[in-house]
């Protein structure tokens, strides 16, 4: 079976080094049913170790992986990915780094 590839467009911003936020698009394999967090993990583990986001319980308990995916507010761990996605922090004005915000 041919592996399906998807594009993940990711918000990046480090207030200390960047003048403004920007987006990076990563192409990743969609292998089996994957969550948004699975996609971000794939990117961090294989493509870009610096990508910053919150991950802890993976099962909807801690509710700290809140993100905006394609304009909707979701938990990264319980939101299934079916095709290309655009991932933004839950509050752009509260970003400490990339997708991780203050007070989440």
């Amino acid at each position, binding site marked *: 079976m041919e592996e399906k590839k998807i594009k993940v467009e990711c918000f990046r911003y480090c207030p200390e080094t960047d003048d403004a936020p920007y987006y990076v698009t990563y192409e990743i394999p969609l292998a089996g049913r994957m969550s948004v967090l*699975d996609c971000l993990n794939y990117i961090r583990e294989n493509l870009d*170790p610096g990508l910053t986001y919150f991950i802890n319980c*993976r099962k909807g*308990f*801690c509710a700290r992986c809140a993100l905006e995916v394609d304009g909707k507010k979701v938990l990264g761990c319980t939101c299934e990915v079916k095709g290309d996605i655009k991932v933004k922090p839950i509050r752009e004005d509260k970003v400490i*780094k990339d997708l991780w915000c203050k007070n989440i």
Partner: protein
Amino acid sequence: MPRAEEYVDRVVETDLLVVGSEGAGAQVAIEAANRGVRPLVITKGAIGRTGASQCAGADFNVDGISAKELGFSGDDRDSQERFFSDIIHEGLFLNNQKMVEKYVEYAPKSTKNLLDWGMRVYYYASVHSEEIARGLTSSGKRWVNALRKKFKSMKLPIIEDTMVVDLLVSSGRIAGAVALDFRSGEIILIKAKAVVLATGGFQMAYPFNSATYDLTGDGQAMAARIGVPLIGMEMVQFIPTTILWPPMERGSIITYIFTELDTRVRLLNSLGQRFMSRYDPKMLEKSTKEIVSIASELEVMAGRGTPHGGVYFSMKYLGEEELERMKNGIIGLTKSLGETRYEFKTLLPRLIEFMKKEDIEVSNACHFMVGGIKVNELTETEIPGLYAAGECSGGLWGANRVAAACTQVGVQGLIAGKISPEFIKRVDQEEITPGDVKKIVERIEGPFKREKGMKVEELRRYIHDISGKRLGVIRDGKGIKEAIDMLKEAVEEVPKLYVSDKRSRKLNREWIGCLEMENMLTCLYATAIASSVRKEGRGAFYRSDFVLTNHDNFLKNTIVRVKQGKFEVGFEPIVTTTLPLPKGKMTFEEAVGVATASLVREDANKGV
């Protein structure tokens, strides 16, 4: 020489530093504050939203008589003596009996605290098929929310998203600790008269686990680095039928929980055979956790595993109509119980829908650390002023845990919160040695300052290969030896670890990963060398080259110590009180029979 304060970004002072904020840590802080000392909690996450407690089932133990006193139905046949004896049989006699006595004694007190603080209970029942019902079933979320509410109402100080990296000892006593604040990237010096470690397990050192990302053995490794022994580190508990594939559900034990609720699940190998019939023809899938784990592993080793290296969890034979009924039943039940957890409310019905057409790949996940920091029944370690409570400690469960981990953390949290203030009131703050702080700060900053070397992700894959293949459910001498050699090589790579993303010290997961890696390696190495000397099978520990449970030679605890950077492994006698230790040898299956004598086990072939 500069002062210790000059090496760090911030300094805080407290009477009692509590490392960890959940089931154990929050309980320590609340109890210590009630006894007039000022605690400071430092947690790697946010209170109520970190570690294992939030994900717990969650069951709490009290003996049948105390249960009645707490207002539940209870069981008149029970006694604290019987409960004590059951736990030690389940642990196949390796338990520290003084610790088990305290567990049984404090279980009602610690449970009453939680009820008083508003933790609601679903029902009182026998949770792990014990003949005597001793379980109050609540949920991890209800538990940690009750603790958090109590903690907040007392306005206790807490520093969140911060990792305590190392402990400071002066004149043989605890003097404080050094921590890294993730959000600011600052290094903090904490001056403290006493420290309680409540950091949980090191499941993340295993490639397939049921745990949260923060469980990297920080407490065990910190304690080991200052010479505190670790006990029973070979005892790693795996939980069978955990979801292996697809990735989104990976690590969820909802399938295992389901097998406790509905016994119609069949486990199949890649040939479609109901393989348990070869390992336990009478009990089949309802055999013990250990036997199901070993059987599934043997199927995979024999080339009869699923594409991702597990076995199939199957209910297709029940037919779509029955599964639809089952799904609706679960949806109705979760509604009536007011259940809000994702795994129960959303995931389980979805899986059942999925299972109408397909089977799910499941496997044995690293679930619970039976061993840990050596403590006595008062949670004291060998270093004055250092205590350990909860899963990071060892000795209570012996070779296996059946009773409630949630109660362990509450009981030990309560004891540590009671004992440490007595010590704190007797002592002054120890002087901190600046050279010690300097060394720790250099170790923390090393990976961030290095320009090249090895990425932590590379080392993570390497150690996961070691733990997954050689320190798993079935071990043998050859694999353990390979693991030891490979882990030695991995340890040599640690000084080469570097952070590639140097945009900022804030929330630098690569950097945090380097510090966690060192801790996981310490724990895994201890697991490997402790496994090498236990030449038998017992409880959670199974070796294919020494399958007998050998009471004559191995009724003793493994002890791992780090001395001047070198690991040493040996044995210490078991602490006993009233239960005599058995003699002779048993087959592993016979031993499992002893360990499960307190459980009700029906014949699986009946009515199927």
